[in-house]
Structure formats: C-alpha cells, structure tokens
C-alpha cells in the first residue's frame, strides 16, 4: 500500500469519526487543526484506524503520535 492509497482510506476514517465529509488530513495535520479532536476522541479515532487497516497500536504508540504523519508512518510499518 502506498502512502497516497493509505491516505485515501485514512481520510474516510477521519470523516466518519468526526462526522465531517470535508476533512482531509496530511502528514502535518495535528489535533489543533480538527475542532473535535481532543484527547477523548483520540481513542475513538485510534480504534477506527485499527479496524480500517487491520492493525493494532500499543499504548506507547497511541500516546506518542504528535501529528497525522506519525500515525501514517506506523500504519505503513504495520499494515501488510
């Protein structure tokens, strides 16, 4: 899976979790860029990403993601 292909899927996850079809994310996107992305919604997002890509993040990874680019790096490293 290329980064671009992964972003197509990831954008859908973001749109679904935050109920906003306008959302598109990139490597530089952070929680500050999306209004409802707070620490509590973060877990819902993580679980939705895990389901979508068939992967699991450990708790250290969940708390280490500072921007969407970090999340994407982990997705590509884990997704087969």
């Amino acid at each position: 899976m290329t980064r671009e292909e992964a972003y197509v899927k990831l954008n859908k996850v973001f749109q679904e979790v935050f109920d906003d079809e306008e959302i598109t994310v990139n490597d530089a996107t952070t929680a500050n860029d999306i209004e409802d992305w707070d620490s509590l919604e973060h877990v819902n997002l993580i679980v939705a990403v895990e389901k979508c890509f068939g992967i699991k993040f450990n708790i250290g990874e969940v708390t280490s993601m500072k921007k969407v680019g970090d999340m994407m790096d982990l997705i590509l490293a884990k997704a087969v």
Partner: protein
Amino acid sequence: MSLTAFHYLTFLAVTVLLYYVLPRKIRWIGILAGDAYFLWHGNSLTELLVWLGMALFTYAISTCVNYLTEEKSKKAITMLGVITLAGALILLQDSSFFGLPDLNVSPMGISYFSLSWIAYLVEAYCGTSPVQKNPLKFLAFAGFFPLLTSGPIVKYKEVGENVTSGNALSLDNVTNGAARIAWGFMKKLIIADRIAIFINTVYGNPYRYPGLFFHVANAFFIIQLYADFSGCIDIALGSAEMLGIKLPENFELPFLSQTLEEFWRKWHITLGGWIRDFILYPILKSPLFQAIGKTSKKLFGKKTGKKVPVWIGLMISWFLVGFWHGGGWNYIFGVGLLFGTIIILGQMLDPVFAWILKILQVNTEALSWKGFRIVRTWFFFGTGLSFFRAGGLMTGFRNLKLAYTSFNPWIFFTGELYELGLDRTDFNILFFFLALVAIVGIVRFRTGKSIRALMAEQNALFRWIAYALLVYAIIIYGCYGTGFHSASFIYQGF
C-alpha cells in the same frame, strides 16, 4: 531536606559546581552524587533501602524487556513490573485505606517516581522509549533530586537521556534557573506560608468562623495551594535548568480556564497526562469498553452512545486522581469524583445549555460571559478543594453546611478579618505579591512569552536589579520562624 531550606541552596550550589567541574562524559556522576545525598537526607535507612530495591527492580525489569524477544514473555515481565510498582505505591502510601497498618517505610516522592517508573516500563515494552542499560545512569535518572519533592511526573524518553548526557555550561541556564528558584521561593515563603495562617485559623475553628469567613478561607486555600505547589515546581524546574535539564511544566495559567475540564488540563499537567496515557487510554481501548461503546451506540445513537464508555472511563480515572492524593474519601470525593461528575454532567447537558443560551441570546464572545465562566470554574475547583483541606469527608460536608447556613457580610467592614493571624500589613504584602504573580500570568497570556524570556530582552543592569529586589523581598517578607515557620510543601505529603 526542604527545597526552601538554606541547606538545599547550599546543596544545590555544590551539586551544580561538581556537575560542571567534572568532564562532560562523566557529569552525570555529579547528579548521581547529588541524588544520593538528597535521598540520604530525605529518608530513613529503611526508606532508602526500599527506594533502592524498587529502583533496582525497575532497572532489572526494563533490562529483561530490552533483551527478551518473545512478545508473551516481554508482556508478562512488564506486567510484573507495573503491578509490583503500583502495589508498592498503594501499600506503602495508602495502607490505611484498606484497613492495614501504616508500615512507615514510604520513601520520599514515591507517588511521583513510581508513576514515572511505571511509564518507563510500559514505554520500554512498547518500544517507544529508549532503555538505559547502565544501572548507575538509571539510578541518576530514577533519583533525580529535583523531582523527589512534588514531581513533576516525567517520562524517561523526555528527560532521562538529558540527565545523563553531560550538558555544557551555559550562563543563561544557570541564571535563568536561579531566577526561577527565587520566583518559587517568593510564591512559597511570601504568599503560601503567609496566607496559610489565615486558613489554619478558620479551618481550625469552623464553628467560630462560619459563613463568609469560610468562603474567604476557602478562596485563600486555592491561592495557597497554587502558590505552594507551583512554587515547589518552580524550584524543581529551576534546579534542573541550572544543570541544563529541561523538565516538563506542571501548570499553564490554570486560573484563566473557562471550564473545569480545561482547568485540569492546565493544573498538575503531568499527573493528568499520566492518568490519560496509562489509565484512561488503555481502559477505553480495552475490548470490554469497545463492547460497551457498541451497545450504547445502539441504545442512544452514535453521538451520545460513543460518549458512554468515555464517561465511565473518566469516572474511573477521576477516582484514581482522588485516590492518588491520599487514601481518604475526602480526596476521592473532593479532588476526584466531584470533578468527574461536574465535567461529565457538563458534557451531557451541553445541548441543553446551548439551547438556553440561544433562547436568552447570550453573547458567548463577550468578556462578561468569559469572566463568569472563569469565576464558575474557580467556584467548582474551590468547592472540591474544601474537602481536600478539611481532612475528612464528613468534616468537609459539615464545613460546607456552616459556610452556607450563616450570613455575615459585615465581616468585610468590621475589621474582623484582620484578627485571624494576618494584620493589615500582611494583607498588603499578600495582595502586592499576588498582583505581581497575576500580572506575570496575564503578560504570559497576552504575549505568549514567559517573564524570564521578557527579562532576558532587557538590559543586564535592569535585570540584575529586578533579581536583587526579588531576593531582598524574599528575605524581608518571607515567612520564617515562630508563627511564620517555613512549612512543608502540601504536595510533598503525597
């Protein structure tokens, strides 16, 4: 050794000197020596041995995690480490909560360092933190003396390497660190220890001082706790800065928060962050909570349903925040469940509030509305804290009853407030320095720059005069000696 004792300043000066005299490669030995001296003075021999046992145990577990390759074994050994450290914290600190005798062997700072070490083990297992292979370097981090009084609760990946890296001498670091220490001394000795005299008088005799006496004392307690705790953190962060080590901030202008939720993101930040990362997130990610989420979405719809597991997780987290403060129901209720309930009710009723505001055509951007929300947040926080200060759950409720069943506004005009241990001069000193802290906070809020960054832009002569005045003020107006003794830090007891 209290951080506000002259002994501490001498110790710090010697440690900083030793650190920079040593070659850079072995500068961490200067920190290790400082840690050893600080731990030796702050603990009995048994407590010291307990600390050393826990530290070496944590080192051994992290080493095993680092060398093991099989996932199952890594997980099992990490669980063993986490459960043992958490068990030691609960048994040594809160044994009375379970009806067990107090063993009296709790090492200083156990509530802080045990959480740091648990985070270290979990992150070592997750592969998101480096692992320190040198046992002595690990001990230099584990016992890093500025953290042992009241935190902050740090992560190894943020601080550990910096403790052992051997930082270059920087005059800016040394002077900035010293200035921050002086600022912490001012908060503690001039504000916290002075205002405490009034609070102790009222809380010591609540039947004599009901109604507004109590409300004033309780408002003062918010100030005392902030000045005391953030003052201690200033001294800790300043001490580390003198060694070129940056520790995480624990406060970020909490009193400008408009909601209790926001307040707790800015007050005792490192505890809130730890609870979120290592309690709330694992709970919410667990299969059980995912199943609860699925069911609640079916029952209440997507929007509300997905919040149900979060609310349950939040209440568990708030229970633990309260429990961490001390194994008593006044802490669990006052600094835990009460705040959790207010935050969750706020989220539940958010649509109702939004509807009322719309009907009443309230301008939510107006300064008056924001001011109201800030004062409301102080009120909620202060109410919870009154249980913290009361020392018992039922005592807390009794105090509130006395506060709300007596009406005595004349105390503001009869001079009675000056008869509770602080005279007019004390009040003037108090309000002057409180105003100084408030101005510094507002400048930070408006400019985004810390006062020290702004001072660094000024001429050296002005800067040094300001620092000298601060030190002079601490010596003249600080609370020392009989009646005005330098008390222990409130959060040191946890």
